[in-house]
């Protein structure tokens, strides 16, 4: 173990900076080395607060390690590596550098021991994720990036208000469980939930993430929402309200993904869906539930990135992203198809994939707590995941009709990144001990029982049957679905338009009134006081004396009478 704890996030930041200044030939080396070095540094950190500096009288704990923090940071570093590999020779260096800075923010949040460090890395993520979206390079990406940035800057301000309240009222800036019994902690919760894409602020995710480049989108799936899950685990474990927020997210993701035509937007909605499972688990709050949330976050980062890579590979090779334009790609993109299917099975929690061993812990936690409704809803949602992501994504992209497209599999580095994560999904699923040994609490759970296998197979296979039976009702249409972002993309601009029109009309009215009566009055007053006007003329001293005499006489007369 190292005595000096160097913040692992700084390695990635350094990597991002070096990528910018390095010779083009050196860049791939840096891209691959920076996340691996970060991963190594993460595993050198012993538990506890490792680095404290004073700042404005506050103890800033740049590095505080614990099993759950290390688990998330590990996932982020692995993710950065695979994302870097995926775009190794295709992504622009600016984009890779921004993506690494974004990943560094996530690693920084993971180890933040105090709320100030936490907030700084949190905003660091908001900043560089916006740059990653802008690297999509299209006009739609520019617009979506601006909306994304506004949403996250507002979220950041809300979080800051909450943090300041906690600092002032408790005197402590420790990252530790907070109780939802006052304004400050509620505001912190709201600030964190905005990054988790919780209702009613869920729309930013499906709005912005699919606009990134094929490479940027892979990074975008991983960091923001999962650091929010970690923040919830650290700050609000067992907050009951999270159960219902999580359940809403789960079904929101399914319903919107079912309506969606853009393949990457389907995957974006399913991020909200999966994060919903984790948020719900944090709300349940038992050791089993927190283990489940952490394990599911880890598994999710890998399989969702895998899914987004397969979608990115299709986009990169065909330039198309709508289900209506795609189909039949399995014939010419076998590796991408296979990796996409592995990711789809993993997100559906199919036995022998990573999702199976992580998501089932969350359901188990609900059952252990005798939360009947929560359990039934989570089970229905598990079937729904297979429906909207597990089958829908691979079916409409790789099978379905023959679109006539015959793109080849993508270049070797993109294939390698996909295969790496596909193998990881299956390895974690087949050897759950790999992941369970990293969880925050001791695991007393056996996912592979006959009972569990049978019930999960039944659930998923019959969900699959429902998909094919209902297929006529699910044909893709060239549409988008309205969400609450309608309020700020349509309603507010319209209101602003109306206000502008009313303002203009009001100004015109004032102007005509002014022309009719105001201006003549002012002109008359001006004439009186301008040189030669009645009030500006110099009068002869004789008449002045005369008038003073008159006034004096009047005053004397009045005084006499009084």
């Amino acid at each position, binding site marked *: 173990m190292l005595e000096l704890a160097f913040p692992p996030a700084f390695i990635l930041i350094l990597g991002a900076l070096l990528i910018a200044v390095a010779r083009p030939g050196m860049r791939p080396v840096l891209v691959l080395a920076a996340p691996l070095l970060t991963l190594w540094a993460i595993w050198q950190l012993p538990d506890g607060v490792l680095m404290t500096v004073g700042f404005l009288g506050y103890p800033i704990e740049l590095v505080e390690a614990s099993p759950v923090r290390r688990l998330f940071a590990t996932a982020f570093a692995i993710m950065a590596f695979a994302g870097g590999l995926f775009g190794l020779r295709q992504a622009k260096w600016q984009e890779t550098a921004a993506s690494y800075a974004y990943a560094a923010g996530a690693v920084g949040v993971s180890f933040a021991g105090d709320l100030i460090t936490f907030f700084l890395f949190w905003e660091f993520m908001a900043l560089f994720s916006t740059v990653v979206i802008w690297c999509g390079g299209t006009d*739609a990406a520019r*617009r979506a990036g601006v909306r994304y940035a506004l949403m996250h800057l507002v979220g950041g301000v809300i979080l800051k208000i909450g943090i300041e309240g906690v600092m002032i009222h408790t005197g402590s800036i420790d990252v530790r469980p907070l109780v939802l019994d006052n304004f400050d902690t509620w505001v912190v919760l709201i600030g964190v939930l905005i990054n988790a894409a919780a209702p009613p602020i869920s729309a930013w995710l499906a709005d912005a993430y699919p606009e990134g480049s094929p490479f940027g989108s892979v990074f975008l799936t991983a960091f923001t929402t999962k650091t929010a899950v970690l923040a919830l685990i650290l700050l609000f474990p067992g907050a009951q309200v999270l159960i219902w927020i999580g359940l809403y997210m789960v*079904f929101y993701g*399914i*319903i919107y993904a*079912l*309506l969606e035509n853009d393949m990457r937007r389907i995957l974006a909605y399913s991020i909200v869906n999966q994060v919903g499972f984790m948020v719900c688990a944090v709300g349940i709050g038992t050791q089993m539930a927190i283990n489940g949330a952490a394990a599911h976050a880890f598994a999710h980062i890998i399989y969702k990135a895998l899914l987004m890579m397969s979608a990115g590979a299709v986009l990169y090779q065909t330039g198309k992203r709508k289900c209506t334009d795609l*189909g*039949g790609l*399995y*014939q010419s993109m076998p590796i991408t198809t296979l990796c996409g299917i592995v990711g789809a099975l993993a997100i559906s929690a199919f036995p022998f994939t990573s999702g199976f061993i992580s998501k089932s812990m969350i359901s188990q936690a609900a*059952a252990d707590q*005798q939360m*009947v409704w929560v*359990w*039934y809803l989570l*089970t*229905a949602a598990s*079937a*729904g995941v*297979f*429906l909207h992501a597990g089958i829908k994504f691979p079916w409409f992209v790789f*099978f*379905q*009709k*023959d679109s*006539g497209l015959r793109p080849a599999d993508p270049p070797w580095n993109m294939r390698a990144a996909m295969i790496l994560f596909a193998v990881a999904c299956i390895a974690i699923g087949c050897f759950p001990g790999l992941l369970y040994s990293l969880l925050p609490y001791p695991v007393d759970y056996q996912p592979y*029982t*006959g*009972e569990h*296998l*049978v*019930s*999960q*197979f*039944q*659930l*998923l*296979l*019959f*969900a699959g*049957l*429902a998909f*094919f*039976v*209902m*297929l*006529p*009702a*699910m044909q893709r*249409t*060239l*549409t*988008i*679905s*309205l969400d609450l972002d309608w309020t700020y*993309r*349509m309603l507010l*601009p319209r209101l602003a*338009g109306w206000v502008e029109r009313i303002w203009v009309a009001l100004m015109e009215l004032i102007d005509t009134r002014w022309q009719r009566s105001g201006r003549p009055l002012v002109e008359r007053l001006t004439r009186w006081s301008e040189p030669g006007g009645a009030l500006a003329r110099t009068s002869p001293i004789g008449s002045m004396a005369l008038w003073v005499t008159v006034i004096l006489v009047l005053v004397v007369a009045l005084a006499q009478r009084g």
Partner: protein
Amino acid sequence: MSAPDQPANAPATPWLSRPANIRRLWWAFAAILLASVLAQALVHMHAYFDFDGWFGFNAAFGFLSCVGMVLFAKALGFFLKRREDYYSAAAEAKERRDDA
């Protein structure tokens, strides 16, 4: 399973697109579905609550909840679906107004 339409100029029908094979896949799928339900007789299931212990509960629940979700999404689609250029058309219209 809906059979993909074969383009007229394609040299050979891919294995997965031949109607006979699609029929075979359906039979295989049906067999797997049946097996997954029958397997319940072989393992000891204990229910957490009430309905979840019924024979074939997960099969029925998985199927019905998915049908329900598809129908719900379809119904919601009537209110929420808009043309793809809904926002971009509005933005362009505004830009035109601003230019004018």
